[in-house]
């Protein structure tokens, strides 16, 4: 069986071959002689921790970055793409993590953008575009109305539109960068179906992700990068998750299955929320948090978790409902009010909300607690800032060249640790973490789990919001499940994941069994 699979792959031509790619940035060798082959119709996983060089490699392949050394062969010919536009026209497309569609245009307009059918004087041929769209839709069994505006689509549908766009240009290779980030389980299932169909038609996919379950479900081979170097390429069927994790981190991480210790102080709730309503997102949310407790909040995307976090932090105002802290009724006008009351939020999107990317590390770190670093005339003591930054660097194991480095040059895990540090410096009593481990590598994730547990042990109340069920089960003392703006379940540590999933999806979903199977 395995040998049959191998011979089958051996027979097939390489659609993409790269040899000895190198690329440096100031102070870092981002890629060091990396080679990679992708065969026709192959789903090829590209794995590595944050900062291992995955994004740089992708950008060098499509021509968004200029590589310093190395050769690239696409469809059998040596090529040197100068820009993503050029590689896209040749049949190499990327579905980026961040959305790259124009929200004000329709699906069809987006798909045809830059490649419109028109006559000599520039008048668009609408019919021809529609015919092409219909043909591709039938071929791949997409069922989507081409006249919808992209701004009205969900994240999953937008991903779908990007894939259709690639197919319309007859792409032979599609690079997908974390395509399942912020997709619900159902949507992920649909995406996998599409990928299977692409494979059937001989289209190759380079699949970049952090989620090993996905890798083992859909890919043929796995290439692992570490510190800008290629570690190895493996047949997916011949390896195991543990082996991959070890290869990625470069060391054997012991599996942590120790039972967590509950430090909840149940004498009086720290925060008490009653009947919170917000637009169509929250429909009567009530719950309590205690000091020393890690309270998990999970649910599908769009269930209202992030809105709840922003309300508690004073960033948006609820339509109605009460918030009490230490038994005192409060109404926050701004995040500043919330911070003064000891509430901190590590927001969902660290790049746009968590950090000022053109700010130096130490300036990001001191921003919310700047008063601690100033004298009574508002003059900042920079030495104090630098000292604190160094303290957190050691405590949180943050990797940066100097505290004067701008945070945009750091990897996701290190950025997130800076966001966490800047909030810990405010001395919060309630720390809200919204998808704090999204898109960061395994090691940084486990470091953040450890920190969260330590903080709870010291009496902090923690609200841990995440759509990754496994981590919520792993580190929370109590779990709330949100569904469609309401709390659909409350569980204690040790609950079976299937119960949580049931509460997330509700009873009416048909393929409940299938979803449960996956998550185990």
């Amino acid at each position: 069986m395995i040998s049959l699979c191998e011979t089958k792959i051996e027979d097939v031509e390489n659609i993409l071959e790269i040899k000895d790619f190198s690329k440096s940035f100031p102070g870092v060798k981002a890629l060091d002689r990396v080679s990679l082959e992708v065969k026709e119709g192959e789903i090829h996983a590209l794995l590595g921790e944050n900062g291992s060089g995955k994004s740089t490699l992708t950008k060098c392949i499509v021509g968004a970055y200029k590589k310093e050394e190395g050769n690239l062969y696409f469809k059998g010919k040596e090529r040197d793409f100068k820009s993503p536009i050029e590689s896209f026209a040749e049949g190499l497309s990327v579905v980026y993590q961040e959305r790259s569609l124009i929200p004000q245009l329709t699906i069809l307009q987006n798909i045809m953008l830059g490649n419109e059918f028109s006559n000599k004087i520039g008048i668009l041929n609408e019919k021809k575009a529609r015919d092409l769209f219909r043909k591709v839709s039938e071929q791949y069994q997409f069922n989507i109305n081409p006249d919808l505006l992209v701004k009205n689509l969900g994240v999953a549908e937008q991903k779908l539109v990007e894939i259709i766009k690639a197919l319309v240009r007859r792409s032979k290779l599609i690079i997908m960068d974390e395509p399942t980030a912020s997709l619900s389980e159902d949507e992920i299932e649909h995406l996998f179906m599409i990928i299977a169909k692409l494979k059937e038609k001989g289209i190759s996919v380079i699949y970049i992700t952090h989620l090993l379950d996905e890798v083992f479900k859909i890919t043929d081979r796995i290439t692992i990068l570490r510190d800008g170097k290629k570690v190895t390429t493996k047949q997916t069927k011949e390896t195991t998750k543990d082996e991959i994790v070890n290869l990625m981190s470069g060391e054997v991480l012991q599996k942590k299955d120790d039972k967590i210790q509950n430090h909840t102080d149940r004498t009086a709730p720290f925060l008490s929320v009653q009947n919170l309503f917000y637009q169509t997102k929250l429909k009567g949310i009530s719950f309590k948090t205690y000091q020393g407790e890690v309270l998990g909040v999970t649910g599908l995307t769009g269930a209202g978790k992030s809105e709840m976090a922003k309300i508690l932090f004073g960033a948006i105002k609820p339509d109605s409902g009460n918030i009490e802290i230490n038994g005192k009724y409060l109404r926050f006008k701004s995040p500043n009010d919330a911070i003064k009351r000891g509430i901190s939020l590590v927001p969902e999107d660290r790049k746009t909300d968590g950090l000022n990317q053109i700010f130096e590390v130490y300036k990001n770190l001191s921003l919310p607690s700047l008063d601690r670093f100033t004298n009574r005339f508002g003059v900042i003591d920079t030495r104090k800032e630098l000292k604190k930054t160094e303290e957190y660097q050691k405590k949180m194991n943050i990797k940066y060249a100097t505290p004067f480095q701008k945070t945009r040059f750091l990897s996701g895990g290190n950025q997130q640790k800076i966001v966490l540090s800047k909030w810990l410096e405010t001395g919060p009593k309630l720390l809200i973490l919204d998808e704090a481990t999204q898109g960061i590598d395994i090691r940084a994730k486990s470091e953040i789990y450890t920190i969260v547990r330590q903080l709870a042990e010291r009496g902090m109340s923690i609200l841990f919001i995440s759509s990754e069920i496994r981590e919520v089960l792993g580190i929370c003392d109590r779990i709330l499940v949100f569904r469609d703006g309401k709390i659909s379940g409350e569980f204690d540590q040790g609950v079976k994941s299937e119960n949580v999933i049931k509460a997330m999806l509700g009873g009416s979903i048909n393929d409940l069994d299938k979803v449960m199977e996956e998550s185990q």
Partner: protein
Amino acid sequence: MTFEKDKHQLNKIFKVLGKYKIMIAFLFLTIIISFITPRFLTWVNILNVFRQSSIVGIIAIGSTFVIIVGGFDISVGSTLALTAAMVIGFQNFIPWPIAILFVIIIGGLLGVLNGFLSAKIKIPAIIATLGTMTIIRGAVYLYTGGYPVYTDTMGAFSFIGNGYIGPIPFPIILLLVLIILFQFILVKTKLGRYITAIGGNKEAARLSGVNVDFYIIMAFLIGGVMASISGVVYASRLLSVTPLAGEGYELDAIASAVIGGTSVSGGEGSVAKTLVGALLLTMITNAFNLLGINLYFQYVFKGIVILTAVGFDSFSKNKNS
């Protein structure tokens, strides 16, 4: 390997060059001009360049703050005219120090108005200040009745624009003091840090507890105050103000900030470098005058300098990302 090392070193040199390019351009131009005309590098002419830079230079301090916070203020030229006319007019009723205090408050209030329109009403800053620019210029005509305002008192008031401390004209000293003070405020105080943070990422600043609207208004307030101080210097220097005073100064001030490396998208900039930008612009005019070149060419050349400075910056930034 050695090649790589060389390359690395070269990169480093380029980086340093990039950081100080405005200084280098400034020195380069100084050397060239002084070779062409010996009258350029004389004590008298140097003081002249500085003094001519002082009015636009003071406005440019404010423009730097406004651009860093992510805004634009094109109303400062009109504010200069209004406060200059008023500081002379008011002296008919009140002593000059109080008149100065009054017009600085007026400049500050106009700045607050600009900030309010931009931060609270959410009118894009360039449009908001286009509106106030027109209104304030109208107010100048209404106040002056369309005629120049002038004063004959050659008293203490004229010291601000014409006096000397030792060998150095007072406007230069005022300019330098303000540059140092506001550079300090920008880099060493909470006010400056918050303004920079807002320009870099407004939402991240808000979610870090920064009162965003307040500090945007503060940046515009500094813009208005600087314009009115500049108006006082202008009035004191000429002792007469026409309703057309200060027209186009806002553009020279923005150009000074931008040539000095202030990022047009906000979040980055330096008051000290803005001074160099302002000196560079004045130097061009000065050199052209010394060389007797047609005034009209100066405009063309100034425009080219602005485009070169900003183009170099934008292009290299784009390439890096």
